[in-house]
């Protein structure tokens, strides 16, 4: 890993000048054959790959109205050019959303459009060559698929769709990304990203029960594979192990305990994350999601609740009904699936939880909207519920809450810099630089309003900030789970 400089935080955000090739060296480790084959991809670059890639591109476009429209409609107006956190953090022009799209659009034009077939130079069409493939590998792994650019596009062109397609094509010719593909392989084999087997999971949960008992004197249960429970909780496996994620898991358990809702985790579906989204492969997307339906049926639960995980909530909210529905076997009185924040918020509104805000009085809290929750899903019944509900929960649990600048939150929130399958140490330079816009907004509320804690509802955001906050001279303990705040504030009574 070459040394790099952490970007300086200026007094106000600036749009950098174009610095060609500034991040051309950034690429993640390539998947080895054993990471590829479990997912149905060739182990290494196949012979005649150019032709196969071009054919695959045509297939993907013919199967997706989104791609069909997005590849035609761009007028190169430039509205998106200053919207990507990776461009703002690096100045590399290929990190401008339109330029990133053009890496693939240029090939599509060359092989599938009249203008590109006959006048390639005129419209910037390119043959599928090794150098194009290398560019794809580098820059489609500098996109966290956060969709911020598409909010500003007059045609709603979603770079995430194009970046997913490019990764799917690369996988289909044998060039995969190690980080994502190795993880998806573990889910297929064991059921979670960490490769945590049932015994280890049970052990961890037992340990948590003891910890909570010690801290509160209350018997809060962390049930696993309990048939007949009302709720099956699907949560990112980071919640079982990583800090500060685990405080969130403790928070969920306390909420269930306080509300008297019977719940369980599943060892078969012990993962909310579905990294197949990142690699744009729908067979794997389907297969990973299917485990959750199987677990829900096997355990006979009535409700599906999803823990704090950004892209998992996008997959759950937007895709589960399509992929693993219909949910006619669940209780129709509850949304299927339901976010843990929706569940907690509902209980708070009904006065079913006792919360002592003063337990969080050491904190001045702000909230980081995670990209996939903000721009790939919703909560509650009203548009924008994904922004108001987590904030209402925080306000119910803390006395001091402030928001960051409006253009950096809500639907125009900045990605943490580690989403979309980029949360790996081989991309740490990109992750640090991509965090710049968020760090800038955070620095302002730290300086002006004394913020000392940032809550989030995404496992990737939490891990990413834990890693990058120290680069910007902040403690990694500044980042926490929303349900970690709930966990601190909730007042439990021992069940009789």
């Amino acid at each position, binding site marked *: 890993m070459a040394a790099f400089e952490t970007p300086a935080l200026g007094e106000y955000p600036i749009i950098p*000048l*174009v610095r060609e090739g500034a991040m051309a060296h950034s690429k993640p480790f390539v998947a080895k054959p054993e990471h590829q084959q479990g997912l149905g991809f060739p182990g290494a670059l196949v012979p005649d790959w150019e032709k196969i890639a071009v054919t695959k591109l045509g297939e993907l476009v013919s199967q997706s*109205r989104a791609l069909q429209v997005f590849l035609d409609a761009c007028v*190169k107006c430039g509205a998106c050019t200053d919207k990507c956190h990776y461009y703002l953090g690096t100045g590399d022009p290929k990190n401008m959303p339109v330029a990133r799209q053009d890496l693939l659009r240029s090939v599509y034009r060359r092989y599938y459009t009249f203008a590109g077939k006959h006048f390639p130079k005129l419209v910037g069409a390119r043959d599928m060559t090794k150098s194009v493939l290398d560019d794809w590998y580098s820059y489609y792994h500098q996109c966290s698929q956060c969709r911020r650019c*598409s909010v500003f*596009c007059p*045609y709603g062109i979603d770079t995430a769709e194009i970046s997913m397609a490019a990764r799917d094509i690369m996988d289909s010719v044998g060039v995969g990304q190690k980080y994502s593909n190795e993880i998806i392989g573990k889910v297929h084999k064991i059921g979670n990203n960490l490769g945590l087997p049932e015994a280890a999971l049970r052990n961890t949960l037992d340990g948590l029960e003891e910890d909570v008992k010690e801290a509160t004197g209350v018997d809060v249960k962390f049930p696993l594979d309990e048939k007949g429970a009302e709720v099956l909780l699907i949560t990112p496996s980071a919640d079982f192990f990583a800090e500060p994620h685990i405080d969130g898991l403790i928070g969920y358990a306390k909420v269930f305990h306080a509300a008297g809702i019977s719940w369980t985790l599943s060892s078969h579906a012990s993962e909310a994350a579905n990294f197949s989204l990142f690699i744009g492969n729908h067979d794997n997307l389907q297969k990973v999601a299917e485990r959750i339906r199987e677990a829900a049926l096997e355990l006979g639960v009535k409700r599906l609740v999803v823990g704090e995980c950004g892209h998992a909530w996008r997959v759950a909210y937007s895709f589960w009904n399509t992929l693993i529905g219909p949910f006619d076997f669940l209780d129709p009185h509850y949304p299927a699936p339901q976010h843990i924040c929706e569940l907690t918020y509902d209980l708070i509104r009904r006065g079913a939880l006792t919360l002592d805000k003063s337990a969080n009085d050491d904190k001045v809290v702000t909230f980081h909207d995670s990209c996939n929750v903000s*721009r790939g899903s919703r909560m509650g019944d009203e548009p924008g519920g994904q922004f108001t509900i987590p904030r209402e929960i925080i306000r119910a649990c803390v006395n001091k809450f402030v928001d960051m600048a409006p253009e950096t939150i809500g639907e125009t929130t900045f990605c943490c810099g580690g989403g979309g399958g980029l949360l790996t140490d081989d991309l740490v330079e990109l992750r640090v630089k991509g965090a710049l816009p968020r760090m800038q907004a955070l620095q302002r509320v730290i300086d002006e309003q004394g913020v000392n804690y940032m809550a989030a509802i995404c496992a990737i955001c939490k891990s990413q900030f834990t890693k990058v906050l120290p680069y910007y001279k902040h403690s990694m303990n500044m980042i926490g789970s929303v349900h970690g705040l709930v966990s601190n504030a909730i007042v439990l009574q021992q069940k009789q």
Partner: protein
Amino acid sequence: MSALTVLYALLFYSATAMLVGGVAYKSWVYARTPQPLKIPIPPAPTTRRGVVLRLLLEVTLFKSLFRANKWIWLFGWVFHVALLAVLLRHLRYFTEPVWAWVALIQPFGLYAGFAMLVGLAGLWARRFLVDRVRYISAPSDHLMLALIASIAASGLAMKYVAHTDIVAVKVFFLGLMAFDWQPLPADPLLLTHLALVATLMTIFPVSKLLHAPGVFFSPSLNQVDDARERRHTAGWSAQAGPAARAGGR
């Protein structure tokens, strides 16, 4: 019948066929291609009515663009509105008698010709002055601006520099529409103007001008945010796991 008249008559028939046929074909391709997953972009409406309103605001006020960049919005919006006014003004060449409201907007159409040029100049300047936009501009992006600007300039020149016989022009176009060809005046400005317009019509369906029909088919803009309430399936998502399961039950 002069060779020139025949040439331009055929040119406009083929340009019209390309424009109408090409856009219809592309729209059909967009319409028949499935969108397997729900991918609306916030702020996403939760009802169909909301989607109609959203698209209306996008295509009339360029709402997202306004949010993104005030300069692009200003030049882009001025250009498009002016273009609309100019097109409406030109209806007088295709209707006899001229509709009252078309007669009424004639002066506005004239100002719009200048506004169009201002908008185009602004957009074009950005392609040179803003380094990010310079980077993403291909030769075709400059050519498109050059083409439309030349159409506007040649049109204005016929009004302010060298008048052409517009009565004869109207007779020519009414004749084309009735398949009863009438002579076209051999005025160089007019011939330039018409040739450029025919070029624009012809390349419409193979160029980025497809953004016009495309915006209506964009799933991120036209989908309703109701994934949990209504099960959405299309294309591969209609044949994959769930359907396979249903078949097996």
